């Protein structure tokens, strides 16, 4: 089994990796996925992929998948700094459109999954 956990709100990630990867799915918004990751980091998990990956800006995509280590060690300041500043950045994107268009939602899921794939490729290499 891999030594990482995927924290996500993207249903497409669950569909694709549900059985072969350890996934924690939360039905929450982008910002709250980052909060879930922050909780993990404070417990001593390492942050493995960048919380702001992708250039679809926070507030413009509802989906986010982030990778943390399964291993729990001591709290690392650099990860705390990165996740806290990422949460702050998300807060800056004040306008949060409601996207109801299924085609666009699917596109956004694909992009998030693609970014995650890129991290998985590095992690599994």
């Amino acid at each position, binding site marked *: 089994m891999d030594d990482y956990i995927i924290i996500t709100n993207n249903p497409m990630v669950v569909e694709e990796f549900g059985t072969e990867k350890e996934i924690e799915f939360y039905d929450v918004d982008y910002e709250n996925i980052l909060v879930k990751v922050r909780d993990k980091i404070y417990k001593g998990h390492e942050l493995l992929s*960048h919380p*702001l990956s992708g250039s*679809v800006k926070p507030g413009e995509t509802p989906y986010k998948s982030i990778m943390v280590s399964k291993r729990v060690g001591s709290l690392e300041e650099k990860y705390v700094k990165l996740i806290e*500043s990422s949460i702050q950045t998300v807060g*800056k994107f004040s306008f949060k459109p409601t996207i109801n268009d299924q085609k*666009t939602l699917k596109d956004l899921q694909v992009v998030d999954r693609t970014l995650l794939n*890129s991290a998985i490729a590095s*992690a599994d290499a």
Partner: protein
Amino acid sequence: MKLEMGHIFIKDIVFSDTSKIEDGVLYVSKAELEKIVLSDEKLKEVSFDVAKPGESVRITPVKDVIEPRVKVEGEGGIFPGVIAKVGTVGSGKTYALKGMAVVTAGKIVGFQEGIIDMTGPGAEYTPFSKLNNLVMVCEPIEDIKPHQYEKAVRLAGFRVATYLGELSKSLTPDETKVYETQTIMEGKEKYPDLPRVAYVQMLQSQGLLHDTYVYGVDAKQTLSTIMNPTEVMDGAIVSGNCVSACDKNTTYHHLNNPVIHDMLEEHGKTLNFVCQILTNENVYLADKERSSDWTAKMCEMLDLDGVIVSQEGFGNPDTDLIMNCKKIEAKGVKTVIITDEYAGRDGKSQSLADADAAADAVVTGGNANQVIILPKLDKVIGTLDYVTKIAGASDETLREDGSLEVELQVITGATNETGFNKLSAR
């Protein structure tokens, strides 16, 4: 390495039965171009249009902008490893069609491409409003995946640009510029008293739809490396990404990188331009550490005094930018970083997602959150269907009078981080 760049000025583009360049006019045969584009079975249809400076035209969603070039003398061909065979470029003689571009448009991932306005307030923010643009909108076959569509459109754009570049091969350029650089030791001997400076270029490499290619290799899978600065002028780096429009480097930006041009201008006068260093912007944090370690190590091994670092994109790459800056400075090498800002609509928020005290020399390309109203224009090339979905737009974007209320993010090249724009701050 010495490269002679011949510029052929194109003052107009006209559709015609045969393709040729005559008296500064580019005549293009749609039928010939169509054959070139549709040679890829993933594309079923293409339409061509011309957008000229000052016309009431909006091009959207823009994917890439490409300047046609042709290799006249010397090793290799334009877009090595992509269109031409792999072979080191950057020496000999190359011609470029100036004053025009090939613009690829199409709803690849719909929501993430940009706008080029040829007139009005929006035109002031994009350098491409000043060019005669040959726009190609490609339609894919059914059930194609977004990344396959992106690749098909990307390559079709390069094929068309290469074809147009070839038309100039036997012409006499209107203007010639010569760029010459030395090897490491030659440079040291020739300019013993000048500061040794390199250009660190960070390339977007976050995964499919977010990639950049160097000699045909996906930059995501590369270790930081060095190049001669003239190599990019022959298309050694091409864009393959659909990231937000304002701060992505199109292929046109890579071919005409202003950091490289300005540094070559100063080479031998105020500085010794040692080389270009390429590094990536991956999503996996260990990759970021490794790439920035290598970049800093190379700066040290090259005995540099200073570097200019340019970023591509926002958020995730802010971390690479700061890692590069911190680690290079720690080696005793001075840095100047070029970025853009997402400082909120009022400009009062923290500009970058990361920061460090070592980043004390920063050039900005402007605030991408700045709001702008784009008036309704007479003609749209592409489609407005997705205009509310592109980064920097919202459901309220399309106003009753047909104008668009958007953030600068939507405009192709508006806050470019190689400085290929007009915005900055003092």
